[in-house]
């Protein structure tokens, strides 16, 4: 069975560097599915995206990746992003708190200000994290 090398690199750590069978992630302009021997590619990763990793044994793992870039070459997909977490690494309580905070901020801000965009981004990230954590928590896969 063919496989590809997936590397996920963040400023804090290298999260993954191993062979998988396919990956799908959210780019700046839509969802990408990367199978082994994908054509060379470079794109941005959405501000609050998710990546679905299909392991070699067919298991699926979902993770949160945010704000970065992806490139494919030589059968290697590299996701270079600000942060990335597996579902079981997400602290749901913290995410909840972040969501509440972001909502409060959003309510009091001018819709055209830069702060609004920042708060909106924070809210999106919180929601994406929450989604992933919940989905894996119930054990149901899409």
């Amino acid at each position, binding site marked *: 069975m063919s496989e590809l090398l997936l*590397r996920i*690199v963040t400023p804090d750590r*290298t999260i993954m560097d191993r062979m998988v069978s396919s990956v799908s992630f959210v780019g*700046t302009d839509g969802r990408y599915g990367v199978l082994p021997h994908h*054509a060379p590619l470079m794109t*941005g990763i959405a501000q609050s995206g998710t990546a679905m990793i299909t392991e070699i044994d067919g298991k699926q793992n979902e993770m949160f990746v945010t704000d970065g*870039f992806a*490139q494919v*070459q030589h059968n290697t997909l590299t996701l*270079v992003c600000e942060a990335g977490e597996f579902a079981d690494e997400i602290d749901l309580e913290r995410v909840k708190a972040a969501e509440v905070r972001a909502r409060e901020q959003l309510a009091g801000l001018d819709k055209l200000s830069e702060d609004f965009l920042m708060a909106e981004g924070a809210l999106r990230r919180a929601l994406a994290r929450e989604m992933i954590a919940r989905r894996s928590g119930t054990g149901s896969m899409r």
Partner: protein
Amino acid sequence: MANLKELRGRIKSVSSIAQITGAMEMVASMKLRKVQAKAQNFSPYTAEIRHMIQRIATKVAGEEDVPLFTQREVKTVGFFLISSDRGLCGSYNSNLLQTLKRKVDELKAGGKQAKFWVYGRKGYTWLIRRGFEVERFFVEPALDKADFKSAKLVGEALVEAFTSGVCDELRLFSTRFLSMAKFVPTEQLFLPIRTIAVGDGAEQDNYALDFLIEPDASTVFNALMPRYLETVIFDAMLQSLTSEHASRRMAMKGATDAAGRMTKDLKKIYNRARQESITKELLDIIGGASAVS
């Protein structure tokens, strides 16, 4: 007798200095370990970002006018200096500042101006004392606690300075950590971006140069550019911080060792003096006793 007392005092003070420097050495090596791990974890990220920008620069170069690529006639050179906040770290700061001074003198001789952006109090006071003007002194957050966000802050300030024409060139002055015992002050051209122009090595590194870019080259490039600059700055910060701790550890180890040797020597002198006084006293007693009998 006064001599003996004096010696005792000195032995005591030297050994308490050894205690302090020993503690500082331990603290420094602990911090060093932490920072080094951080730097190590960060380096793959730096490598990837660098790699990407090199790849994409081949696509963008010549296609359009990117302000950060523009080379102007250099009249004012900006320096971003990363020094330490605290002293007692051996020749860490002075090495860096000597290198800087040579560079600045050279520029001055060529009729150019220099402006400074500084991280670290030592570098700041050094510049001020020599009458240089510091454009901006970054204090918050302290370098120890600096994270990616502070690199962003610095990056924005520097890009702003460059694009608004405050300076025509920006150089990074920091210390590169080569090994536990080797740190080299380095100068790095920051803006305009020249180093990432497609090297001849590009093909040999077997980058796949023919690749798809979504949505298009300039969009990705414009998103990647600020990230790249921050990464370069953060990398320099981490390297400097690692060097600082390593340098402090070495200096403190030297001090502790020297203090240990000194205590040993002083003890020898002290014992000799004590023996001498005992002998003298004994002679006195014997002399006195024989006079009585």
